[in-house]
Protein backbone atom coordinates (compact mmCIF):
# COMPACT_ATOMS: atom_id res chain seq x y z
CA UNK A 1 0.00 0.00 0.00
CA UNK A 2 1.35 3.41 -0.97
CA UNK A 3 1.14 6.04 1.74
CA UNK A 4 1.67 9.69 0.93
CA UNK A 5 2.48 11.07 4.38
CA UNK A 6 5.96 12.17 5.30
CA UNK A 7 7.94 9.61 7.32
CA UNK A 8 9.76 10.75 10.46
CA UNK A 9 12.54 8.85 12.24
CA UNK A 10 12.63 8.54 16.02
CA UNK A 11 15.16 6.68 18.14
CA UNK A 12 12.63 5.02 20.44
CA UNK A 13 9.14 5.29 21.96
CA UNK A 14 10.04 8.27 24.12
CA UNK A 15 11.57 10.08 21.17
CA UNK A 16 8.30 9.60 19.28
CA UNK A 17 6.44 11.27 22.14
CA UNK A 18 8.77 14.26 22.17
CA UNK A 19 8.65 14.56 18.38
CA UNK A 20 4.86 14.65 18.34
CA UNK A 21 4.46 16.87 21.39
CA UNK A 22 7.04 19.36 20.15
CA UNK A 23 5.29 19.65 16.79
CA UNK A 24 1.93 20.34 18.42
CA UNK A 25 0.52 17.06 17.12
CA UNK A 26 -0.98 15.78 20.39
CA UNK A 27 -3.62 16.69 22.93
CA UNK A 28 -1.00 16.52 25.66
CA UNK A 29 -1.40 12.81 26.33
CA UNK A 30 1.02 10.16 25.04
CA UNK A 31 0.20 8.80 21.59
CA UNK A 32 0.54 5.42 19.96
CA UNK A 33 3.33 5.67 17.34
CA UNK A 34 1.59 5.71 13.94
CA UNK A 35 3.73 3.29 11.98
CA UNK A 36 2.91 2.43 8.38
CA UNK A 37 1.90 -1.07 9.47
CA UNK A 38 -0.63 0.20 12.01
CA UNK A 39 -2.08 2.75 9.59
CA UNK A 40 -2.34 0.20 6.79
CA UNK A 41 -4.18 -2.16 9.12
CA UNK A 42 -6.84 0.52 9.67
CA UNK A 43 -7.17 1.21 5.96
CA UNK A 44 -7.46 -2.49 5.17
CA UNK A 45 -10.12 -2.98 7.82
CA UNK A 46 -12.13 -0.12 6.31
CA UNK A 47 -11.38 -1.43 2.80
CA UNK A 48 -10.39 2.02 1.60
CA UNK A 49 -7.36 3.18 -0.37
CA UNK A 50 -5.12 5.65 1.41
CA UNK A 51 -5.97 8.45 -1.00
CA UNK A 52 -9.75 8.06 -0.57
CA UNK A 53 -11.22 11.53 -0.23
CA UNK A 54 -13.59 11.95 2.73
CA UNK A 55 -14.45 15.50 1.84
CA UNK A 56 -13.08 18.98 1.35
CA UNK A 57 -12.96 21.38 4.27
CA UNK A 58 -14.93 24.29 2.82
CA UNK A 59 -13.40 27.32 4.48
CA UNK A 60 -9.80 26.63 3.45
CA UNK A 61 -10.66 24.16 0.69
CA UNK A 62 -8.50 21.48 2.26
CA UNK A 63 -8.94 17.91 0.98
CA UNK A 64 -9.35 15.36 3.77
CA UNK A 65 -8.02 11.89 2.96
CA UNK A 66 -8.63 8.68 4.80
CA UNK A 67 -4.88 8.17 5.29
CA UNK A 68 -4.63 11.20 7.56
CA UNK A 69 -7.65 10.05 9.54
CA UNK A 70 -6.05 6.64 10.02
CA UNK A 71 -2.77 8.12 11.27
CA UNK A 72 -4.59 10.14 13.90
CA UNK A 73 -6.86 7.25 14.84
CA UNK A 74 -3.82 5.06 15.51
CA UNK A 75 -2.28 7.84 17.60
CA UNK A 76 -5.47 8.04 19.67
CA UNK A 77 -5.33 4.35 20.47
CA UNK A 78 -7.87 3.08 17.97
CA UNK A 79 -7.80 -0.50 16.79
CA UNK A 80 -8.50 -1.15 13.11
CA UNK A 81 -12.02 -2.25 14.02
CA UNK A 82 -12.69 1.19 15.51
CA UNK A 83 -11.68 3.02 12.36
CA UNK A 84 -14.92 2.79 10.33
CA UNK A 85 -16.65 4.72 13.12
CA UNK A 86 -14.04 7.45 12.87
CA UNK A 87 -14.53 7.71 9.10
CA UNK A 88 -18.32 7.91 9.44
CA UNK A 89 -18.05 10.51 12.21
CA UNK A 90 -15.74 12.79 10.22
CA UNK A 91 -17.96 12.38 7.17
CA UNK A 92 -20.95 13.42 9.27
CA UNK A 93 -19.04 16.39 10.70
CA UNK A 94 -18.30 17.59 7.18
CA UNK A 95 -21.95 17.82 6.19
CA UNK A 96 -22.88 21.49 5.66
CA UNK A 97 -25.56 21.48 8.36
CA UNK A 98 -22.98 20.58 11.00
CA UNK A 99 -21.06 23.81 10.29
CA UNK A 100 -17.74 22.29 11.30
CA UNK A 101 -15.62 25.43 11.09
CA UNK A 102 -17.97 27.49 13.22
CA UNK A 103 -18.49 24.75 15.78
CA UNK A 104 -14.77 24.11 16.24
CA UNK A 105 -13.57 27.71 16.03
CA UNK A 106 -16.15 29.39 18.26
CA UNK A 107 -15.37 31.07 21.56
CA UNK A 108 -18.35 29.03 22.80
CA UNK A 109 -16.00 26.09 23.16
CA UNK A 110 -18.12 23.07 22.38
CA UNK A 111 -16.88 19.56 21.67
CA UNK A 112 -18.03 17.03 19.11
CA UNK A 113 -20.14 14.39 20.84
CA UNK A 114 -20.59 11.00 19.16
CA UNK A 115 -23.37 8.52 19.82
CA UNK A 116 -23.03 4.95 18.55
CA UNK A 117 -26.02 2.86 17.52
CA UNK A 118 -26.53 -0.56 16.08
CA UNK A 119 -24.51 -3.80 16.08
CA UNK A 120 -21.17 -2.00 16.08
CA UNK A 121 -21.67 -1.18 19.76
CA UNK A 122 -21.41 -4.85 20.62
CA UNK A 123 -18.70 -5.60 18.08
CA UNK A 124 -16.53 -2.95 19.72
CA UNK A 125 -17.56 -3.85 23.30
CA UNK A 126 -18.74 -0.31 23.87
CA UNK A 127 -20.26 0.06 27.32
CA UNK A 128 -23.50 2.08 27.37
CA UNK A 129 -24.10 1.69 31.09
CA UNK A 130 -21.72 2.44 33.99
CA UNK A 131 -19.88 5.77 33.76
CA UNK A 132 -21.17 6.25 30.25
CA UNK A 133 -20.04 9.87 29.97
CA UNK A 134 -16.74 9.23 31.72
CA UNK A 135 -14.52 7.07 29.49
CA UNK A 136 -16.40 3.87 30.10
CA UNK A 137 -14.53 1.64 27.66
CA UNK A 138 -11.65 1.38 25.22
CA UNK A 139 -13.58 1.85 21.98
CA UNK A 140 -15.55 4.96 22.80
CA UNK A 141 -12.63 6.63 24.57
CA UNK A 142 -10.24 6.03 21.68
CA UNK A 143 -12.76 6.97 18.98
CA UNK A 144 -13.65 10.21 20.75
CA UNK A 145 -9.99 11.05 21.16
CA UNK A 146 -9.34 10.29 17.50
CA UNK A 147 -11.78 13.02 16.49
CA UNK A 148 -9.94 15.55 18.64
CA UNK A 149 -6.55 14.61 17.17
CA UNK A 150 -8.02 14.80 13.67
CA UNK A 151 -9.35 18.27 14.40
CA UNK A 152 -5.96 19.34 15.72
CA UNK A 153 -3.78 17.86 13.01
CA UNK A 154 -5.86 17.62 9.87
CA UNK A 155 -8.07 20.68 10.36
CA UNK A 156 -5.53 22.76 12.36
CA UNK A 157 -8.07 23.26 15.16
CA UNK A 158 -5.52 23.97 17.87
CA UNK A 159 -6.22 26.02 21.00
CA UNK A 160 -5.32 29.62 20.25
CA UNK A 161 -5.19 28.88 16.53
CA UNK A 162 -8.46 28.07 14.84
CA UNK A 163 -9.86 26.84 18.17
CA UNK A 164 -10.80 30.11 19.89
CA UNK A 165 -12.67 28.47 22.81
CA UNK A 166 -12.70 30.75 25.81
CA UNK A 167 -12.83 27.87 28.30
CA UNK A 168 -13.81 24.73 26.36
CA UNK A 169 -14.79 21.70 28.40
CA UNK A 170 -13.42 18.25 29.28
CA UNK A 171 -15.53 16.58 26.58
CA UNK A 172 -12.99 17.84 24.09
CA UNK A 173 -10.61 15.10 25.24
CA UNK A 174 -13.12 12.43 24.24
CA UNK A 175 -16.92 12.63 24.05
CA UNK A 176 -18.28 9.39 22.71
CA UNK A 177 -20.91 7.02 24.06
CA UNK A 178 -23.02 4.12 22.91
CA UNK A 179 -26.77 4.03 23.35
CA UNK A 180 -28.18 1.26 25.55
CA UNK A 181 -30.42 -0.38 22.96
CA UNK A 182 -30.42 -3.75 24.73
CA UNK A 183 -32.11 -2.53 27.84
CA UNK A 184 -34.66 -0.27 26.23
CA UNK A 185 -37.80 -0.75 24.20
CA UNK A 186 -37.43 2.70 22.72
CA UNK A 187 -36.43 3.34 19.15
CA UNK A 188 -32.73 4.03 18.99
CA UNK A 189 -31.43 7.43 18.03
CA UNK A 190 -30.40 6.00 14.65
CA UNK A 191 -33.80 4.40 14.08
CA UNK A 192 -35.43 7.74 14.77
CA UNK A 193 -33.30 9.00 11.89
CA UNK A 194 -34.56 6.29 9.53
CA UNK A 195 -31.57 3.96 9.84
CA UNK A 196 -32.60 0.31 10.22
CA UNK A 197 -31.88 -1.41 13.51
CA UNK A 198 -29.63 -3.90 11.73
CA UNK A 199 -27.31 -1.12 10.52
CA UNK A 200 -24.71 0.65 12.62
CA UNK A 201 -24.63 4.41 12.79
CA UNK A 202 -22.98 7.35 14.45
CA UNK A 203 -24.54 10.67 15.39
CA UNK A 204 -22.39 13.76 15.83
CA UNK A 205 -23.49 16.84 17.73
CA UNK A 206 -21.70 20.09 18.52
CA UNK A 207 -22.20 19.82 22.25
CA UNK A 208 -21.65 21.71 25.42
CA UNK A 209 -20.61 20.06 28.66
CA UNK A 210 -23.08 17.66 30.27
CA UNK A 211 -25.22 19.11 33.05
CA UNK A 212 -26.11 16.35 35.52
CA UNK A 213 -29.59 16.10 37.00
CA UNK A 214 -31.02 13.80 39.67
CA UNK A 215 -34.56 12.83 40.54
CA UNK A 216 -35.06 9.67 42.58
CA UNK A 217 -38.11 10.95 44.40
CA UNK A 218 -40.89 10.10 41.97
CA UNK A 219 -42.02 7.51 39.45
CA UNK A 220 -44.32 9.91 37.62
CA UNK A 221 -43.05 10.60 34.07
CA UNK A 222 -44.02 14.25 34.04
CA UNK A 223 -42.17 14.92 37.27
CA UNK A 224 -39.07 13.06 36.08
CA UNK A 225 -39.02 14.93 32.81
CA UNK A 226 -39.74 18.24 34.48
CA UNK A 227 -36.31 17.94 36.10
CA UNK A 228 -34.69 17.61 32.67
CA UNK A 229 -36.77 20.52 31.34
CA UNK A 230 -35.77 22.68 34.31
CA UNK A 231 -32.09 22.03 33.60
CA UNK A 232 -32.63 23.03 29.98
CA UNK A 233 -34.36 26.20 31.12
CA UNK A 234 -31.41 26.92 33.40
CA UNK A 235 -29.07 26.56 30.44
CA UNK A 236 -31.22 28.94 28.43
CA UNK A 237 -31.01 31.52 31.20
CA UNK A 238 -27.33 31.11 32.02
CA UNK A 239 -25.87 30.26 28.64
CA UNK A 240 -27.85 30.58 25.43
CA UNK A 241 -31.50 31.24 24.74
CA UNK A 242 -31.40 30.03 21.14
CA UNK A 243 -33.21 26.84 20.12
CA UNK A 244 -31.34 23.85 18.76
CA UNK A 245 -30.40 20.24 19.33
CA UNK A 246 -30.40 19.42 23.01
CA UNK A 247 -29.59 15.86 24.09
CA UNK A 248 -30.73 14.15 27.26
CA UNK A 249 -29.22 11.01 28.75
CA UNK A 250 -31.93 8.92 30.44
CA UNK A 251 -30.56 6.15 32.66
CA UNK A 252 -32.14 2.78 33.19
CA UNK A 253 -33.79 3.59 36.50
CA UNK A 254 -35.64 6.56 35.07
CA UNK A 255 -36.39 4.78 31.80
CA UNK A 256 -38.14 2.03 33.71
CA UNK A 257 -40.59 4.51 35.17
CA UNK A 258 -41.27 6.06 31.77
CA UNK A 259 -41.53 2.82 29.81
CA UNK A 260 -43.68 1.12 32.44
CA UNK A 261 -46.51 3.50 31.66
CA UNK A 262 -45.89 3.48 27.93
CA UNK A 263 -43.97 6.69 27.35
CA UNK A 264 -42.08 6.51 24.06
CA UNK A 265 -39.18 8.71 22.98
CA UNK A 266 -41.66 10.74 20.96
CA UNK A 267 -43.72 11.33 24.12
CA UNK A 268 -40.60 12.46 25.96
CA UNK A 269 -39.67 14.80 23.12
CA UNK A 270 -43.15 16.30 23.01
CA UNK A 271 -43.33 16.86 26.78
CA UNK A 272 -39.93 18.50 27.04
CA UNK A 273 -40.56 20.58 23.93
CA UNK A 274 -43.60 22.05 25.68
CA UNK A 275 -41.90 22.55 29.05
CA UNK A 276 -38.41 23.73 28.06
CA UNK A 277 -39.03 27.37 27.21
CA UNK A 278 -38.46 30.69 28.92
CA UNK A 279 -39.45 34.34 28.63
CA UNK A 280 -36.71 36.68 27.56
CA UNK A 281 -37.39 38.79 30.65
CA UNK A 282 -35.93 35.98 32.77
CA UNK A 283 -32.52 37.10 31.58
CA UNK A 284 -32.90 40.13 33.84
CA UNK A 285 -32.88 37.74 36.83
CA UNK A 286 -29.46 36.37 35.90
CA UNK A 287 -27.57 39.54 35.15
CA UNK A 288 -28.42 39.85 31.47
CA UNK A 289 -31.03 42.58 31.75
CA UNK A 290 -29.26 44.82 29.26
CA UNK A 291 -30.27 42.63 26.32
CA UNK A 292 -33.90 42.02 27.30
CA UNK A 293 -34.92 45.35 25.74
CA UNK A 294 -38.54 45.46 24.56
CA UNK A 295 -38.76 41.70 24.03
CA UNK A 296 -39.32 40.64 27.63
CA UNK A 297 -42.61 38.90 26.94
CA UNK A 298 -41.26 36.89 24.01
CA UNK A 299 -41.25 33.16 24.70
CA UNK A 300 -38.25 31.15 23.51
CA UNK A 301 -38.50 27.36 23.18
CA UNK A 302 -35.37 25.27 23.68
CA UNK A 303 -36.06 23.38 20.48
CA UNK A 304 -37.63 24.59 17.25
CA UNK A 305 -39.51 21.29 17.11
CA UNK A 306 -39.76 18.19 19.35
CA UNK A 307 -37.49 16.14 17.13
CA UNK A 308 -34.59 18.49 17.82
CA UNK A 309 -34.33 16.81 21.23
CA UNK A 310 -31.99 13.80 21.12
CA UNK A 311 -33.23 11.28 23.69
CA UNK A 312 -30.45 8.81 24.50
CA UNK A 313 -30.89 5.71 26.64
CA UNK A 314 -27.64 5.27 28.55
CA UNK A 315 -26.18 5.05 32.01
CA UNK A 316 -25.66 2.57 34.82
CA UNK A 317 -28.47 0.43 36.19
CA UNK A 318 -28.85 2.18 39.53
CA UNK A 319 -29.40 5.83 40.25
CA UNK A 320 -31.77 8.50 39.09
CA UNK A 321 -28.97 10.47 37.48
CA UNK A 322 -29.37 11.79 33.99
CA UNK A 323 -27.83 14.56 31.95
CA UNK A 324 -28.78 17.45 29.74
CA UNK A 325 -26.29 18.14 26.96
CA UNK A 326 -26.85 21.58 25.47
CA UNK A 327 -26.09 22.60 21.92
CA UNK A 328 -23.05 24.67 21.07
CA UNK A 329 -25.20 27.59 20.00
CA UNK A 330 -28.78 26.95 19.08
CA UNK A 331 -29.52 26.14 15.49
CA UNK A 332 -26.18 27.19 14.03
CA UNK A 333 -25.13 23.56 13.93
CA UNK A 334 -27.40 20.56 13.50
CA UNK A 335 -26.73 17.03 14.72
CA UNK A 336 -26.02 14.61 11.88
CA UNK A 337 -26.63 10.86 11.91
CA UNK A 338 -24.75 8.70 9.43
CA UNK A 339 -24.74 4.98 8.75
CA UNK A 340 -21.37 3.28 9.14
CA UNK A 341 -19.86 1.53 6.17
CA UNK A 342 -23.00 1.45 4.04
CA UNK A 343 -24.94 3.80 1.84
CA UNK A 344 -28.65 3.66 2.53
CA UNK A 345 -29.83 5.71 -0.39
CA UNK A 346 -27.25 5.00 -3.07
CA UNK A 347 -28.43 4.27 -6.56
CA UNK A 348 -27.53 0.79 -7.83
CA UNK A 349 -24.75 0.89 -10.43
CA UNK A 350 -25.98 1.49 -13.97
CA UNK A 351 -25.12 -1.32 -16.35
Amino acid at each position, binding site marked *: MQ*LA*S*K*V*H*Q*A*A*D*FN*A*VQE*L*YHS*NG*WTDGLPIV*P*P*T*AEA*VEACLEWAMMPAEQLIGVE*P*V*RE*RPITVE*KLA*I*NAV*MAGCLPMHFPVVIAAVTAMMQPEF*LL*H*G*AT*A*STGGCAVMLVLNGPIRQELSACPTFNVLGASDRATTAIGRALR*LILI*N*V*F*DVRPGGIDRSTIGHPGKISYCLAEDEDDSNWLSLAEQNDIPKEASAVTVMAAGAPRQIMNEWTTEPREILETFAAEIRANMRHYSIWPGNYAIIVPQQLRRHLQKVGWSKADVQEFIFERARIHRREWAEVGKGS*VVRDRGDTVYPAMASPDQLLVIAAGGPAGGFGAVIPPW*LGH*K*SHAVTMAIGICLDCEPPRT
Partner: protein
Amino acid sequence: MTLQVLDPSSEMATELGNPAPRLASLQGKTVGFISNGKEGTVGYFSHLDKMLRDEFGVADVIVRVKSNYSAPADPAIVAEISRWDAVISGLGD
Protein backbone atom coordinates in the same frame (compact mmCIF):
# COMPACT_ATOMS: atom_id res chain seq x y z
CA MET B 1 15.66 0.41 17.12
CA THR B 2 14.70 3.43 15.09
CA LEU B 3 10.98 3.91 14.66
CA GLN B 4 9.54 5.17 11.41
CA VAL B 5 6.35 7.08 12.06
CA LEU B 6 3.98 9.03 9.87
CA ASP B 7 3.19 12.72 9.84
CA PRO B 8 -0.36 13.27 11.20
CA SER B 9 -0.74 16.83 9.96
CA SER B 10 -2.35 17.91 6.72
CA GLU B 11 1.11 18.76 5.36
CA MET B 12 -0.56 21.62 3.54
CA ALA B 13 0.43 25.16 4.29
CA THR B 14 -2.56 27.43 4.21
CA GLU B 15 -2.08 29.97 1.49
CA LEU B 16 -1.91 33.41 2.96
CA GLY B 17 -3.56 36.16 1.00
CA ASN B 18 -1.56 39.21 0.02
CA PRO B 19 -2.61 42.41 1.72
CA ALA B 20 -4.23 44.93 -0.57
CA PRO B 21 -2.21 48.05 -1.32
CA ARG B 22 -2.42 50.47 1.59
CA LEU B 23 -4.52 53.56 1.07
CA ALA B 24 -2.64 56.84 1.45
CA SER B 25 -5.72 58.40 2.97
CA LEU B 26 -9.32 57.53 3.80
CA GLN B 27 -10.47 60.94 2.61
CA GLY B 28 -13.43 60.56 0.26
CA LYS B 29 -13.21 56.79 0.23
CA THR B 30 -15.91 54.12 0.63
CA VAL B 31 -15.41 51.80 3.57
CA GLY B 32 -17.39 48.59 4.04
CA PHE B 33 -18.07 46.82 7.31
CA ILE B 34 -18.76 43.10 7.38
CA SER B 35 -20.54 42.51 10.64
CA ASN B 36 -21.15 39.13 12.22
CA GLY B 37 -24.49 40.50 13.44
CA LYS B 38 -24.05 39.85 17.14
CA GLU B 39 -25.58 42.08 19.81
CA GLY B 40 -22.44 44.10 20.32
CA THR B 41 -21.96 44.97 16.68
CA VAL B 42 -24.61 47.68 16.58
CA GLY B 43 -22.89 50.05 18.95
CA TYR B 44 -19.40 49.06 17.85
CA PHE B 45 -19.87 49.62 14.14
CA SER B 46 -22.02 52.73 14.52
CA HIS B 47 -19.23 54.26 16.61
CA LEU B 48 -16.67 53.30 13.97
CA ASP B 49 -18.94 54.73 11.26
CA LYS B 50 -19.06 58.11 13.00
CA MET B 51 -15.34 58.08 13.70
CA LEU B 52 -14.44 57.33 10.10
CA ARG B 53 -16.67 60.10 8.75
CA ASP B 54 -15.85 62.74 11.38
CA GLU B 55 -12.14 62.14 11.89
CA PHE B 56 -10.96 60.61 8.63
CA GLY B 57 -13.25 62.18 6.05
CA VAL B 58 -14.66 58.91 4.75
CA ALA B 59 -17.33 59.61 2.14
CA ASP B 60 -19.47 56.55 2.57
CA VAL B 61 -19.76 53.66 5.01
CA ILE B 62 -21.57 50.51 3.96
CA VAL B 63 -22.61 47.90 6.51
CA ARG B 64 -23.31 44.32 5.55
CA VAL B 65 -24.34 41.65 8.05
CA LYS B 66 -23.54 37.97 7.60
CA SER B 67 -26.54 35.67 7.59
CA ASN B 68 -24.75 33.30 9.96
CA TYR B 69 -22.18 34.76 12.31
CA SER B 70 -20.37 31.45 12.65
CA ALA B 71 -19.91 30.91 8.92
CA PRO B 72 -17.84 32.70 6.30
CA ALA B 73 -19.38 35.79 4.72
CA ASP B 74 -22.14 35.15 2.19
CA PRO B 75 -20.97 35.10 -1.45
CA ALA B 76 -23.10 38.16 -2.24
CA ILE B 77 -21.23 40.16 0.40
CA VAL B 78 -17.85 38.95 -0.81
CA ALA B 79 -18.81 39.96 -4.36
CA GLU B 80 -19.51 43.49 -3.16
CA ILE B 81 -16.09 43.98 -1.58
CA SER B 82 -14.40 44.87 -4.85
CA ARG B 83 -16.56 47.99 -5.05
CA TRP B 84 -15.27 49.32 -1.74
CA ASP B 85 -11.95 51.06 -1.15
CA ALA B 86 -11.44 49.39 2.22
CA VAL B 87 -13.18 46.76 4.29
CA ILE B 88 -13.33 46.11 8.00
CA SER B 89 -14.36 42.63 9.04
CA GLY B 90 -14.69 42.42 12.75
CA LEU B 91 -16.37 40.80 15.71
CA GLY B 92 -18.79 42.65 17.88
CA ASP B 93 -18.54 40.67 21.07
